[in-house]
């Protein structure tokens, strides 16, 4: 386990990531010396590597007279290096009460975070939990990403698996991290009580200081930490009453803001290691295409190219820089065997889905007698919904650094599923899982993609490295945007057929919803599919909150060779749209206000009602808007979090439309950091909004028609609405906020458009009104 004790954010924010520091040293003095040596030498090596390609200029600030240690310090400053005096004052680890907390001689508290920071704020949220119960000062908190070790860092909702997803980080960590902080506090206080010869209950802890008021004695954490390390770890600790929270509930500054603003944050793309080669990849043009032959002779003539390697899945060119590798790729002559490749077009798939929808599927929910109720309904409404494949299109194209040597395999990656990746890599290389070390870096976005159940891009990087075959030479695989966009693992295409009926009062009495789409979970094997139902295909529909007495949801799960995967909010990405636009359509059928209509169907759902009412109130629902402008509402619960959107949409003279403003209400239980929550509501909304305007992956004879941002069109600044977020006060345990806003915007916008145009919208994206 790495114990780098950098001052600020400790997941590599400097180039010194090549050195692993042994924690088994016998005494503090040896460790301190070892720390100094290793940090200096590691940085020195890295500096040497990247300087090798260019000539020094006399004007350069890198003075060749200085030794490499000094050069390393100048050229690649460790974050916060300005705050630390000299290398000889490197902090010493003093107290490590559990897997999550370290306190050092510089009085810093390093919180070990088991979840991936992909922008959703988990480093900040989880560190806050520790800081609160520890009664630390927020300024003394640092974070470090946890090593891959499910025995200590598993997601408590996932059994023996470490990983991030399903908006579970805060929920599964809420008690665990608070307990970790409280445990450390208990031991610090116990040590101080012994030292000061005072009762434990007379010692207060506040903002990183322990005090005994009566005697005036006080101490920092650092000054009592060594003694605390001798204390017995308590079995039980008391946690604070929420009334006493000082940090939880406050909009504390994010742990990663400074590093990301000042460009100190290291992403996988930025990793530097001695001898590193970069690999560009030629990937199959169609799913199921295989390499028949490769002529790499021209590629090898490109300056900087070290090798052309074939692997199971394509061909890679390795070079000392990415661009040369890419030039090599462009000079490869590859013959692909497409005899077994996927050849369908989106229109073919849709036609098949329509056919399947003619017949009943596996039942996901069945209340009452839907067919009878439909026959007896006063009015009925039918609609067919079409949803395209969607790419995650993270800002950082997927990439991964791999180094294989006699000790095993080391990986640098914005890793979302450490245990799965560890096991997949171990299996491929014939290693034990714990011989696969994963350095989890920041992710330049994920939206679910990095948690690929087959460890696709990680394994690809390992395969390339193994095929290259040079022991201890690290390889950085960088996917181009085209590689990334066309690699698959999309949000599946879906087709819904809904038939609904209302009684003479306009109340829905029957709802039949048939869903057709590839099963995401079948990649794990049929064990995840119970009675033919993949829950991720029907969530949001099969558990809709509306009181409809005759309700049936059934499902067809056709198999296609297009790889599919969860995409921010998963099943809700399509079910929220069809359910919320259909409910609106039923309201309109009987001239009822959409908000009031929903209220009447949610009498047993107080948390749904609360967000609906809050959004309606704050958006001025029912008040007059300018001509050509209308409001639309949508409400959806996903991952145990309740979200309502009211979107204000304008219709332009040329029939284009814009979303002017979105008011969001959210109930996510106890709000740990209100500003992070707001940011996730805003950003999640924007992510979903792109799917209304433009985003789609379409296939033409097996080839994805989109390859970069000119044709996979995502949201830009000029399309972002004004947004206001309101958080429902709650003392329930916190639930996730990474995903729940995303599915709500599309139906809210569609419903507003319907008010403007009188038409209903059943296909996404809505390119024309």
């Amino acid at each position: 386990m790495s114990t780098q004790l950098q001052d600020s954010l400790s997941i590599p924010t400097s180039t010194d990531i090549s050195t692993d520091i042994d924690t088994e040293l016998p005494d503090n003095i040896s460790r301190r010396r070892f720390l100094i040596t290793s940090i200096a030498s590691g940085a020195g090596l890295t500096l040497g590597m990247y300087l090798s390609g260019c000539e020094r200029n006399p004007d350069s600030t890198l003075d060749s007279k200085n030794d490499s240690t000094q050069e390393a310090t100048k050229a690649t400053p460790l974050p916060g290096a300005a705050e630390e005096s000299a290398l000889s004052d490197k902090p010493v680890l003093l107290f490590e009460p559990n897997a999550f907390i370290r306190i050092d001689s510089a009085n810093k508290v390093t919180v070990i975070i088991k979840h991936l920071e992909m922008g959703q704020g988990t480093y900040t949220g989880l560190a806050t939990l520790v800081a609160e119960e520890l009664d630390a000062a927020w300024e003394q908190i640092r974070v470090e990403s946890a090593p891959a070790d499910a025995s200590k860092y598993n997601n408590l909702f996932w059994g023996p698996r470490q990983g991030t997803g399903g908006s579970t980080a805060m929920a599964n960590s809420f008690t665990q991290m608070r307990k970790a902080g409280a445990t450390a506090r208990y031991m610090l206080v116990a040590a101080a009580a012994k030292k000061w010869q005072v009762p434990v209950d007379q010692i207060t802890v506040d903002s990183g200081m322990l005090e005994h008021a009566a005697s005036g004695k006080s101490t920092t954490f650092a000054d009592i930490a060594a003694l605390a390390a001798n204390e017995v770890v308590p079995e039980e600790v008391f946690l604070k009453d929420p009334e006493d929270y000082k940090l939880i509930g406050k909009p504390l500054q994010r742990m990663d803001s400074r590093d990301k603003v000042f460009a100190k944050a290291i992403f996988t793309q930025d990793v530097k290691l001695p001898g590193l080669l970069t690999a560009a990849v030629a990937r199959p043009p169609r799913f199921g295409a295989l390499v028949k032959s490769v002529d790499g002779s021209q590629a090898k003539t490109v300056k900087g190219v070290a090798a052309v390697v074939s692997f199971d899945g394509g061909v890679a060119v390795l070079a000392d820089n990415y661009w040369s590798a890419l030039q090599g790729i462009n000079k490869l002559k590859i013959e692909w065997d497409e005899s077994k490749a996927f050849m369908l077009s989106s229109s073919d798939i849709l036609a098949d889905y329509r056919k399947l929808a003619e017949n009943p599927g596996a039942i996901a929910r069945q209340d009452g007698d839907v067919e009878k109720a439909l026959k007896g309904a006063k009015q009925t409404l039918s609609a067919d919904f079409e949803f395209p494949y969607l790419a995650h299109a993270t800002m950082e194209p997927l990439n991964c650094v791999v180094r294989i040597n006699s000790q095993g395999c080391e990986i640098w990656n914005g890793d979302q599923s450490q245990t799965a990746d560890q096991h997949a890599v171990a299996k491929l290389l014939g290693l034990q899982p714990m011989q696969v070390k994963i350095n989890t870096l920041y992710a330049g976005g994920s939206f679910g993609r990095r948690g690929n159940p087959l460890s696709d891009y990680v394994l690809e990087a390992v395969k390339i490295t193994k095929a290259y075959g040079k022991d201890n030479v690290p390889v950085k695989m960088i996917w181009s945007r085209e590689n990334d966009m066309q690699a698959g693992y999309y949000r599946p295409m879906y087709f819904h057929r809904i038939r609904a009926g209302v009684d003479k009062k306009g109340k829905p009495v029957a709802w039949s919803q048939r869903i057709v789409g590839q099963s995401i979970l079948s990649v794990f094997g049929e064990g995840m599919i119970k009675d033919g139902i993949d829950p991720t295909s029907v969530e949001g529909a099969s558990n809709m909150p509306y009181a409809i007495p005759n309700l049936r949801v059934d499902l067809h799960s056709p198999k296609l060779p297009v790889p599919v995967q969860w995409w921010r909010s998963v099943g809700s990405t399509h079910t929220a749209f069809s359910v919320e636009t259909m409910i609106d359509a039923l309201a309109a059928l009987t001239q009822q206000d959409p908000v009031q209509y929903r209220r009447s169907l949610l009498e047993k759902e107080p948390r749904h009602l609360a967000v609906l009412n809050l959004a309606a109130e704050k958006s001025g629902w029912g008040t007059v808007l300018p001509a050509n402008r209308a409001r639309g509402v949508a409400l959806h619960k996903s991952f145990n979090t309740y979200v309502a959107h009211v979107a204000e949409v304008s219709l332009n003279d040329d029939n284009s439309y814009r979303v002017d403003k979105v008011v969001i209400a959210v109930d996510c239980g106890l709000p740990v950091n209100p500003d992070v929550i707001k940011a996730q509501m805003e950003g999640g909304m924007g992510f979903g909004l792109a799917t209304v305007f433009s985003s789609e992956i379409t296939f033409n004879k097996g080839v994805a028609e989109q390859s970069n941002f000119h044709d996979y069109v995502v949201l830009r600044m000029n399309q972002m609405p004004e947004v206001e977020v309101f958080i429902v006060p709650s003392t329930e345990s916190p639930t996730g906020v990474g995903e729940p806003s995303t599915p709500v915007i599309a139906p809210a916008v569609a419903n507003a458009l319907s008010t403007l145009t009188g038409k209903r919208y059943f296909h996404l994206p809505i390119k024309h009104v």
Partner: protein
Amino acid sequence: MIQLRINNQTHSLDVDPQMPLLWVLRDVLGLTGTKFGCGLSLCGACTVHLDGKPIRSCATPVSTVQGKHIETIEVVNSASAKAIQQAWLKLEVVQCGFCQSGQQMSAIALLTENKNPDDFAINAAMSGNICRCNTYARIRSAIKEAAKSLS
């Protein structure tokens, strides 16, 4: 040999004249603050300053910028740059952070040229920078905040 002036240092580099500035910065000079996002100047992650103006370095062959004054995110420190950075922190703009070097470079160039940009000016200057975390509302507010702090 290609002569480049980057962050007030001159470099004489034996690189292909067609090599995009982005990769010279990242792979040859080790300046990894400027990011690769698309390679076709569609996303803005690679934005740097050329004589103070924002350019997409992924689509700029180094032969075309010899001798010109290039600045990257690592060194920006004009009044506009500091205002942007402080506003970014104050308003908690960042999420994953990957696009933010490019966003800031575009925003700094905007503020340098336009002391009080309105929404139209912000849209024009910033719509070339994609943010998949969609932190656009905060970027907009932060630009306005930075402008205010400079006035």
